[in-house]
């Protein structure tokens, strides 16, 4: 049955994460943006209350949830819905800080979906320890981003090991991560069928950080270039083992992770847009022009109402995609719709909010200036808006294989 209300659990998660976002995240966000770092004290608190970026499965001692977890017998799995509800609230606190939270991050879903039992224990089990640890996802290269099939990082079998060579870029938490899921090709001529995912651990000889990026926004978040120079990894680090790649599934497994991560990223865009929108509403109530609050002017009302409804529509697209993931319905199209719509909406909302606030919207000590810088990348990472539209197009137009 159609139901737009939160369950008690969903509402508790929403309120708890919101409380944390408001009281712990907001106060450090502006300084984190300027100094490009997150206070250790904050990270300690995050671990203490058990917040994690990306779920840690129950089977390795975590809280459970996330992509790849088997549906429970009653079919009432709601991890994806809980994830997007939490992601929106956390991003409402700050869109950069959320990316710095310890946990497997975007590296979690591929391990969960593709990994063997041993690999899950070995790589996800570490997140149940008290100290803050990170995982990372290394797909993008200087020459291959959206076109994943074009990756050039090579993996050459060498006895029980593989030898990895190449460069990965724009890797969130890439420098601090305990391990990075590195995608490489064993045979470029095979395209996607030649792709393999390796768990490359920090400190492996030949594995180094090239540079840390200076960015338009999300400055508190660490974005690293990773260099792989004859990195030897044992075959036990090949995600899923060789057998996984022999089936038809193969590399498409990696793509499946997007079905649950895209709605999550979309949810973050919703959170930021909402945060900015709330500021604009407050501003419109308190700021007077020609003797009345600017919210009394039709033009401002139009901007606010348009923002509001698009934010709400984005959230429903997110919930729908997450609900489908929970119900184990194929949701690639819907996940992309949520990401494409929420990201574009958020960019436009931020632009409108800055406009409503005028000069106050562009000065450094207000959040909206920062959020304006932060939000743009939400239309770029985890699949650009254009990639989302390719995914949708292929599912609404018959026989469309490529452009």
């Amino acid at each position, binding site marked *: 049955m159609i139901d737009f209300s939160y369950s008690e659990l*969903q509402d508790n998660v929403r309120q708890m994460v919101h409380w944390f976002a408001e009281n712990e995240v907001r106060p450090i966000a502006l300084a984190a943006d300027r100094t490009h770092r997150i206070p250790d004290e904050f990270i300690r608190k995050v671990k203490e209350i058990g917040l994690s970026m990306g779920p840690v499965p129950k089977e390795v001692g975590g809280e459970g949830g996330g992509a790849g977890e088997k549906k429970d017998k009653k079919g009432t799995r709601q991890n994806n819905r809980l994830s997007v509800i939490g992601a929106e609230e956390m991003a409402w606190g700050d869109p950069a800080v959320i990316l710095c939270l310890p946990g497997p991050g975007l590296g979690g879903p591929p391990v969960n979906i593709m990994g063997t039992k041993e690999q899950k224990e070995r790589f996800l089990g570490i997140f149940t320890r008290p100290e803050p640890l990170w995982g990372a996802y290394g797909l993008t290269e200087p020459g291959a981003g959206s076109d994943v099939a074009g990756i050039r990082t090579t993996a050459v079998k060498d006895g029980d090991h593989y030898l990895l060579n190449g460069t990965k870029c724009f890797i969130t938490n890439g420098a601090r991560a305990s391990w990075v899921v590195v995608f490489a090709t064993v045979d470029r001529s095979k395209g996607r069928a030649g792709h393999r995912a390796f768990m490359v651990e920090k400190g492996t000889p030949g594995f180094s950080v090239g540079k840390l990026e200076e960015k338009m926004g999300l400055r508190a978040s660490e974005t690293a270039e990773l260099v792989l120079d004859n990195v030897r990894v044992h075959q036990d680090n090949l995600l899923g083992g060789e057998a996984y790649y022999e089936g038809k599934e193969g590399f498409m497994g990696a793509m499946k992770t997007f079905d649950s991560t895209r709605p999550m990223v979309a949810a973050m865009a919703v959170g930021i847009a909402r945060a900015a929108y709330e500021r604009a509403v407050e501003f419109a109530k308190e700021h007077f022009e020609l003797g009345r609050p600017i919210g009394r002017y039709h033009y401002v*009302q139009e901007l606010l109402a348009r923002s*509001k409804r698009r934010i709400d529509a984005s959230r429903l697209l997110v919930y729908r995609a997450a609900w489908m993931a929970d119900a184990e319905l194929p949701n690639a199209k819907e996940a992309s719709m949520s990401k*494409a719509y929420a990201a574009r909406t958020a960019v436009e909302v931020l632009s409108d909010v800055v406009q409503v606030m005028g000069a106050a919207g562009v000065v450094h000590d207000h959040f909206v200036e920062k959020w304006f810088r932060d939000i743009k990348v939400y239309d770029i990472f985890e699949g650009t808006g254009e990639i989302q539209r390719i995914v949708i*197009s292929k599912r*609404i137009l018959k026989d469309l294989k490529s452009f």
Partner: protein
Amino acid sequence: MLSFELGEDLTQIQATVRDFAQREIRPALRKTERSGASKALAERYEELGLFGLDWPADLGGQGMGALARVIVEEELSLGDVGTAFALDRGGAAAVFLKAAGGERASSALSELLRNKGSAALAMAEDVKAQDDFRTTARKVGGGWELSGKKSFVLNGAEASQYVVLAQVEQGKGLAGAGAFLVQGGSAGLAPGKALITLGLQAVPMCEVLLERLSLPSSARLDEPGKLQGLLRSFYDALSLVTAARAVGLAGASFEYARAYAEERQAFGKPIGHFQAIAFLLADMATAVDAARWLLWKAAWASERGAATAEAAEAQAQALEAAFFCANSAVQILGGAGYVQDHPVEKWMRDAKTLSLYGLHAQAAHATLAAAELGQELSAAELFPIPSLHPAIS
């Protein structure tokens, strides 16, 4: 718990109406645009129990909720939005009567169901903006006497029942206005100039002239001083209907353009295989879904209490989707989209017209903004009557 599954009953209704819309409404759409819904269509509509679907069972309705109503309206409009208007012989007037409640309004509704008549809502006036209606209702003897001219009235020439808004106390705006029930064919009531419209032509529009029209005192539908509250619930309900038709229109435009883009070849491949077209279609599909979820959420919320902001929000979103999709569909079909061999030029005209129906797009935004800003907006800002730009009803 956040569930997006429709459930068995509503899925069944949806499938039935979709079938009716695709098999019978769509093929007849040009004929319906020219001369209204055919007898066969109207009979099938009644047979399916779609008229009075969301009216209380004791009035002879089906007693279903707002969610069922919006699903039916969307599906009908997936066939053709103009036909959805033409088949709904109660129109905005029936929504008004349902919102008004009370004995007089209720008996008018059951009469509509029984006698197969139709209703019209005479609200707006084509005069210089002001706070009062120019149409007046004077107390005369034990009853009322109405005089004035109403405009932009759908089905204004042939209705069996009219709801007329008129000024009772001068200088008080909506606070001094009242709503009156008038039987079609009453002396002093006459259709005025026919108005040829941009779209939604399946229901003819005209002026309605009132000249010393005598009414019994029981003809007044609202309690004095409570018209604004009544208008609020009327617009809340009408917004859902408008939004549902807009979502249907958007979906029809998307689907038509999608199918065309798969067939039409250029440079050796279907035009849908070019990004400029495919991405536009992807955005159209997304716009339809985004609007539909807001609509369903608003309908769901309205079954649980007042949902003014939700309904206004859904309407504004759906109108945006409707025009975006219809306009894009014409663009994708190119020259073919502009000629009447295809329905998309009609839907584009319909979409523009729809955005001026009921609580038009600006008023919907103002309503939403007022809720968000915690403002007490004046009636003139919230309602498209009597001033601002008048809306179709």
